[in-house]
């Protein structure tokens, strides 16, 4: 976080790795840091992504939708799903649902 400007300047894409970032910078600061990173990425005109944990609660609950809406509102170009994505064929269903949710936002 201390070198955010320099990192954004040199990178092609900036990823908010929320799992590691929560540990390094404190769990309660995670959304504030996410907003700072996305804003800085935009300042340097770099594409940005936020991961992960969007599908930890599956099917999604209100808190999940609020989290995803917030990331999109802050300008994330994409969302990353990882260990939170179900295995095998169920992943297709989860991505279909996530895509439907993203398309439903009027932003």
């Amino acid at each position: 976080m201390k070198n955010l400007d320099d990192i954004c300047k040199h990178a092609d894409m900036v990823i908010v790795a929320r799992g590691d970032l929560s540990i390094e910078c404190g769990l309660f600061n995670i959304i504030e840091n996410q907003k700072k990173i996305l804003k800085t990425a935009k300042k340097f005109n770099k594409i940005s992504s936020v991961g992960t944990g969007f599908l930890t609660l599956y099917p999604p609950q209100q808190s999940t939708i609020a989290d995803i809406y917030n990331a999109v509102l802050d300008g994330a170009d994409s969302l990353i799903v990882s260990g939170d994505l179900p295995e095998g064929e169920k992943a297709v269903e989860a991505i279909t649902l996530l895509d439907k949710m993203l398309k439903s936002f009027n932003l």
Partner: protein
Amino acid sequence: MTGIIVTLQPSHLPYLKDLHAAGMTMVRLNGSHNTVDWHGKTMQAIRSEIPNTPILLDIPGRKLRLAIETILPVEANQILELPIPIWIPQGTTILFDDGKLTATVISENQRTLRFHQNGELRPRMSMNIPGITIQGPLLTKRDLEIIDLAQALSVDYLDLGFYRILKINPRCTQTLR
């Protein structure tokens, strides 16, 4: 429109086209898991089945991983000796899997831990020790093998977490395509 980056697991491989049709806009491969050979074959499968989908390859770099071979259940207050690759002061808390499981270093040899909760340790589980800087080369031999493979297969993005310095190996700073 916001994209969806899917971190591919082996069980997703038969569904590449379905995932793409469902809304996946980029594939992410996590270099911390699976073999270098698996990554090579998977990149080739992506290029062949969904050729216009960009690939993001995550290079583990200095992230600590647990070197055990099988799943190991643990209970709260259980004391266990584990292969920790670096020196850690007594009393330090280690966070496994982004803090889902935690333990304190209790012995003088720094490898004996007391666990705080019930849970399970898995092979190559992530370990994080806040405040500890990991020394040694930024990229491991395995990282470099994966980077060479990515370059040969024209992977679109390399993602390196846990860098401590800004001037890193130029092989990582350039966009490969």
